[in-house]
Each structure stands twice: as C-alpha cells, then as structure tokens.
C-alpha cells in the first residue's frame, strides 16, 4: 500500500515535470516573447533591457531551471494581458468549472445507474437495445452543436432559459444538460455492458436455477460486480470533465478555466495557458489517484503492489 502510493506519487511528479518541460520548450519554440510584448517601434536598447528584465538573455538551460523553480512555488509569471499573477487568474475561475463539471457528473452518473438498473430489472432485451442505440446516437452529437441546439430551442425560440453567462441556477441548466447527457450516454453504455457480462456468469445461472427472483439476483449478486468498471471509468472521466469542459464553457460563455485557456490562446497569453494546463493536469492526476485507491478498496482481488 505505502509502496504503491509512493510509486504513484513519483509517477505523478514525473508527469507534471514532463508537462512543464514540454510547455516551456513549446513556448520557446513559438518565438521570442519580446516581439509579442513590445511595440514594433521599440528601439534595440529597449529590446535589450526588456530581454534582461525577463531573463531572456541567459542560456536556455538557466531559463528552464528558473522556470521550474518558480513553477514549484506556484509562480507561473504575470499574465501578459491582465498584469496579475497567472495562477491567481486560473484559481479565480476554478469554482465555475467545478460547479459545472460536478453537477453534470453527478447527474449523469445517477441517471445512468437508475436507468441501467431499471432496464436490467425489466429483463427486456429489446428495451435495452433501443436505449443503447439512443445512447450511441447521443455520443455521436458533438457537445458544442448539442449545446447550440438547446440554446436554439430553449433560449431563442421558447425564451425560457438564459443562454449565456453564470449567475442564477437557470444559467446552469442548459450547460449542465449538454454535458450530463453525454456523461449519461457513456456511463449507461458501460454499466449496461458490464451488467451483460455478469449476466453470463455461472453464479447467475445457478441463482436462477435455484429459483431466486430476478430483482434479488440483479441487486444482490450482479450489481456489486458490475459497479467496479463504472467506478474506474467514472473516476477517470471526472478528471477529464474537470479539464474538458472547455468546449461547453465556450458555447455558453461560462466563466470557467477552460474558457480562460481558450481566451488566453487567442491573446497569446502564455503564462496563463501554462498555469491553466498545469492546474487541470494536477486535478486530473489527484482524481485518478483517489480512484485507484477506491478501486482497491472495492475489489479485494486488486492488490496495490
């Protein structure tokens, strides 16, 4: 257990180091920041003093070490546009992203659990098949287009719900529907498929032969086993969702981290991009670590060696 934790932590640190190294060199590859930050008419002296101020006159390796040393302290530099610390800007937007991601995640997971279980209890293969095709169809609809269709229906045509921004609960409804239906489709397909795997097992046949009721077999015997894959995938997906609401946030002008990153990209605000990517990766890794531990707790066969 302790050694597993130590290995996973080491792996996480290495990953973060890799992410930071890749972003540092990619940004350098993109060109000299002075051409972006200084006006075109800047004199050679001004450029030189600016380069000294930013430390760009030093060897690349020294710059890299300094960048890492600052990053460890949570200092990703000053936003080139807003002139405030980049990390602060990202953390400011984090609650909005968490609100949207967690709402959609919980909604999708609960619905998938309820619908999947009800379908299995009903015992109708035809119903299951129909619902699975609907879920597959929902997965084929791109998130941003689905969001726009919802805006078209509920904001433009019916004028029931606001389409942009964050504020009251009504603002949350459309983006949450957009994301949670996608999550629902994913979890429902997974849950259904793992229930189907369990249904083929010998212990289920034996239980049926003994004359146990379907509801008892499904809930007492199949459910605990079928939940394991759901926990793993849901966990990895929660991490993805926390960073992957980028597109939905843009559609609904939701002031979260994803939208901040996209805006910073169009403004070439590199410190904010790096800080944003770093924070999202960090959250993603922490969530994955928790899921691994939870998985070992739920399934005694998994040994954390």
């Amino acid at each position, binding site marked *: 257990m302790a050694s597993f934790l130590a290995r996973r932590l080491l*792996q*996480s640190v*290495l*990953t973060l180091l*890799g*992410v930071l190294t890749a*972003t540092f060199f*990619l*940004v350098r*590859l*993109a060109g000299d920041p002075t051409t972006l930050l200084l006006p075109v008419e800047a004199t050679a002296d001004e450029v030189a003093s600016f380069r000294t101020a930013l430390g760009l006159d030093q060897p690349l390796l020294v710059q890299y070490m300094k960048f890492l040393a600052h990053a460890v302290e949570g200092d990703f530099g000053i936003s080139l546009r807003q002139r405030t610390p980049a990390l602060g800007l990202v953390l400011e937007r984090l609650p909005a992203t968490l609100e949207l991601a967690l709402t959609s995640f919980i909604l999708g997971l609960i619905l998938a659990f309820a619908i999947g279980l009800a379908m299995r209890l009903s015992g109708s293969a035809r119903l299951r098949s129909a619902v699975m*095709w609907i879920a*597959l*169809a929902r*997965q*084929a*609809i*791109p*998130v*941003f*287009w689905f969001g*726009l*269709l919802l*805006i*078209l229906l509920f904001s*433009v045509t019916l004028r029931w719900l606001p389409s942009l921004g964050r504020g009251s609960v009504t603002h949350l409804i459309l983006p949450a529907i957009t994301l949670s239906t996608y999550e629902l489709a*994913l979890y429902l*397909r*997974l849950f259904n*498929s793992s229930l*189907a*795997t369990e249904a083929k097992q010998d212990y289920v046949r034996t239980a049926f032969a003994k004359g146990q009721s379907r509801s008892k077999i499904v809930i007492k015997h199949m459910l605990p086993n079928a939940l394991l*894959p759901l926990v793993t*995938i849901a966990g*990895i*997906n929660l*991490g*993805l969702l926390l*960073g*992957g609401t*980028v*597109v939905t946030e*843009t*559609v609904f002008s939701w002031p979260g981290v994803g939208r901040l*990153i*996209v805006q910073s*990209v*169009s403004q*070439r605000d*590199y410190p904010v*991009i790096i800080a944003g*990517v770093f924070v*999202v*990766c960090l959250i*993603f*890794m922490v969530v*994955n670590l928790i899921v691994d531990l939870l998985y070992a707790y739920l399934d005694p066969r998994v040994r954390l060696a």
Partner: protein
Amino acid sequence: MMRHITFTTWLAIAMLVAVVLLVTIIPWLPDYAPYTQDLASSLLPPFDRLDNGQLSIFGTDKLGRDILSRLALAGRVSLFIGLSAVAVSMVIGVILGLVAGYFRGWTETIIMGFADLQLSVPRVLLLIAVTAILGSTVFNLTILLGLTSWVAYGRVARALSLSLREREFVLSAITQGATPAWNIRKHLLPNVLPQMVIVGSFELGQIIVLEAALSYLGLGIQPPLPSWGLMISEGQSYLEINPWLTVIPGLALFMLVAGVQFLTRSLTTEGEEERDIAVRIV
C-alpha cells in the same frame, strides 16, 4: 454465417452514403463556389433565390457564400484530416505497442510509461496548448491529432502481442533464427491488424469531432478554408436570424460520425464495445 442486416445498419449506410455523395458530387456541379462572396444575397435561408434568381438549396452565409458548396469542401477537409490522423496514429500505435509487447522489459516500461504520461493530460487540452503555440495548418492538425491518439492502438496491440509472443509459431520461428523485426512483421502484425481496424473506426469519429471542436474554438482550420466546426461557430452569431447556418453543418457532422459509429457497432461484438467506451475517455 450471413449476418442479419438490421435497421440501424441500413440507417448507418444511408447516412454515410449521403455524406460521401455530398463531398464527391457537389464539387463537380457548375454552381460549386465555396469562396465566391455575394453581399447582396447574404444570410439567405435554405431554398431561397439568390439576387440573380438562382435557387440556393442550403442558403448562404454572412458573406453570401453558398452553404452547400462550403459544406462539401469542409467535408473533404474533415474526412482528409480524420483519415490521415487515424493512419498516422495507427502506424505509431501499432509499432510501439508491438515492440513493447514483444520485447517486454525496459522497452515496455518506457513505451507504456510514455503512454501513461500522455493519458494524464486531457487530449483536448493538449491539442489546444500545442496548436496555440505551433499554429494550426491542415498539416499541423493532422500530425498533432495523429501524435496524440496513438495510445489506444498501442495499448491494444501490446495486450494482444503479450500472448502472441508465447505462441508456437513465434517460438518456432525464434529457434530457427528469425529476427525480432521479422517476427513482429510476419507473425504479430497480421494477427493484431483486424483489432487495429476496429479501434481505428472507433477513433475516426472521435478525431473528426475533435477537429470540429478545435475549429469551433477557432484553433483548428483557419478561414477562408471552411470546416464544419468553423461554420457552426460562424453561424452561432446568427442563431436568431438564420439558425440553419448552425443546424446544417452540425447535421452533416452528426451523419458522418453517427454513420461510422453505428456501422462499427453493428459489425462488432459486445466485448469490442467496451473497447469503444475505453477509447472515448482518452
């Protein structure tokens, strides 16, 4: 045994045929003009007449460009990027996966460690960061989508080759002096290829949607070249005046992606469905 062709299979084939006809036939029509602007007849709804009395089937955008023509050209771009990126990632993934599974040891540790590293960054975010910095030409997008998508193939190829390398035909070849390269090419590759094609067809839909999402965010295909994602994003400002600008390209995108996925789903078995679900989360 002949498979019973179900309704959903027909639906998938119909959707794919419609998209293929769109991208192959429209560019040969005399009215094909994806770039010609006509401000006098901008933002026309479908089946309206242009300034010169000509019928416009899908209407026009804000610059008066013909939506049908742009839809066809965008479809070509999407399909080109999607298929090339799948090819790039499949080649990388198969080679790395087979090498990892055949040699085991530190080779495997390094390759799979790299896969884990890549999986610990959400793919959309990785693509946003990299396209932001390197710029997004069609070539860049294809290569980047390909480079970021190899893990699904790599993992499956490695898992399959772990058992293949213990099989008699591989062992017998080794005792007869076969080199690892020969063994991988002649014995492992043909045996994993069918699975790779299945992973590829699950991935194709994902990659096309990713490209559309990037273009929607303004980080993918750059104007004046059309892309379905870009057309949806341009249409968003006119949602109240002319919703068709948003609805039509989205419908084309849906028909392509759903067509590929429905068809793959009808031709594969339960176990492979789990692979599809696994592909979707990376």
